[in-house]
């Protein structure tokens, strides 16, 4: 569905996207993960043909981008990071206006509106003004708007940033419905739970470069020890000095907490029983641990 080879984009001397290869199969949900500034949004803009790459090739549903970006965009629906619904129009008018940008006949758009409103859970809000909608409703309408021309593939740029848990679950539900209908989804996110929940496969980007790619579970298995014990409390420094290197395969001291990565958590927990001032949290390792291992813990902004 999407084939990217050697994609590179420079701004001045900085390479924002470096030699990127991606393969997205039809019907799958593909996640693009990365810290702020990793090149996720730039990659999406390149895929849409909004900006031209310095080198590399993009093929979207068999169409060459950016050369035939217009044809390619007929098959793509986009949910941008920032809501850009038309505030001068009502909910329903937003869908009508957006369909016209795809060259659709009014009757064809009108026929799809009830289905789109139902999908967005806004069936009773057709005539509401955009300013009256909650953040979650706006996101859902933006998602419905991206479907107005029945695209094969959807690009979502951080679709649930800024939403409360209820609203996020509704969006995820909608996306799963689209996947069940056979749509292909490419989404960027920096929420690991979102990626783990939705993505069949994902790519982790850092400094514009692909640092890992695979199914979420496979990434966890191949990049990191299966369990994590987070240790904190009084006397941590002493315990770290005497036990950490012998008991953990890998450990990391972050502020007041020691992250112990291990395949034998019981050994660590046994040792901690003799250190009553220390507290701990034992959990299976997750995508966030992989992400932090690969991209580091320093702030990017």
């Amino acid at each position, binding site marked *: 569905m999407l084939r990217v080879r050697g994609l590179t984009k420079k701004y001045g001397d900085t390479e924002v996207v470096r030699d990127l290869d991606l393969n997205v199969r039809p019907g799958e949900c593909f996640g693009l993960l990365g810290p702020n500034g990793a090149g996720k949004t730039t990659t999406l803009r390149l895929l849409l043909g909004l900006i031209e790459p310095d080198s590399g090739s993009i093929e979207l549903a068999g169409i060459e981008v950016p050369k035939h970006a217009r044809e390619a965009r007929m098959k793509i629906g986009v949910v941008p990071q920032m809501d850009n619904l038309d505030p001068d129009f009502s909910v329903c008018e937003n869908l009508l206006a957006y369909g016209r*940008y795809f060259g659709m006949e009014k009757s064809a758009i009108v026929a799809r509106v009830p289905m789109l409103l139902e999908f967005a859970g806004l069936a009773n809000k057709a005539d509401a003004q955009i300013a009256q909608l909650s953040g979650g409703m706006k996101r859902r309408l933006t998602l419905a708007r991206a479907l107005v021309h029945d695209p094969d593939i959807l690009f979502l740029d951080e679709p649930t940033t800024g939403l409360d848990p209820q609203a996020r679950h509704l969006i995820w539900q909608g996306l799963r419905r689209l996947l069940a209908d056979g749509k292909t989804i490419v989404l960027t996110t920096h929420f690991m739970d979102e990626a783990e929940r939705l993505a069949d496969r994902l790519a982790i980007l850092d400094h514009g470069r692909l640092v890992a790619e695979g199914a979420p579970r496979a990434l966890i298995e191949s990049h990191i020890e299966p369990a994590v014990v987070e240790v904190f409390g009084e006397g941590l420094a002493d315990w770290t000095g005497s036990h950490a290197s012998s008991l953990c395969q890998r450990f990391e001291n972050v502020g007041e907490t020691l992250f112990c990565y291990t395949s034998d958590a019981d050994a660590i927990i046994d040792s901690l029983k003799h250190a009553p001032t220390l507290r701990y949290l034992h959990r299976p390792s997750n995508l966030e641990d992989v992400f932090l291992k690969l991209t580091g813990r320093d702030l990017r902004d």
Partner: protein
Amino acid sequence: MTSLLRLPRLSWRFIPVWQRNYLVWKKLAIPAILGNLADPMLYMLGLGYGLGSLLPDVGGMPYLTFLAAGTVAYSTMNAATFEVLYSSFSRMHVQRTWDAILNAPMTLDDVMLGELTWAVSKSLLSGLAILAVIWGLGLYGHFWMTLWIIPVVALVGFCFGGMGLVMNAVSPSYDFFLYYFTLVITPMVLLCGVFFPVSQLPAVVQGVSAWLPLTHAIDLARPLVVGSMPDNITLHVVALLIYGSLGYVIALALTRRRLLK
């Protein structure tokens, strides 16, 4: 910059953009018409009658007629300028409407052509309203001749729409537009013969005035109101076309750098 500056690729796909602006405008058409049209008309009638009664013929015609012909061009210029400055800027920068449209199979060329043609439509409305007053008060020489004012008005709207889009492309905020009004629009209103004949100005200033687009607009509109064929029609038409097209092409390059870098 050189890679950004290229011939625009024009297509009919600009129509949904025009239509979007039209549908929004239609919702508030009555207050919009009153707001946009009442102002130039009040100036024209107030000054025309008030000042006109004190004055002999100006430029060979009653002052009200002189002023009405100037106001056609002036209010057309203002309508186009306000549209591509404040309204286009809202859609581009504040509401991000252009971003949304660009995710559809539309190019920036389409979006900005839609904005430009919409500005022309708004200026047509403004120009026609003044023309209606000219007809109503019988300020014209030959009725049929005044019909030529309609394409002139569209041309003037195109010229100032294109020029204004350049300002839109480089502006960080609404406040920036004040520079354009203070440094470009207001001097033009005073130098190009809206309120008094250019011949009243010092020779050097007349020389500057001859290059300004509003002068070309008025040199076309005023004779048509009075009922004679304008002199140097080709020169004026070409000048207005060049100002407008250059503006559009430069604005396209600058906006591309702003939005699609």
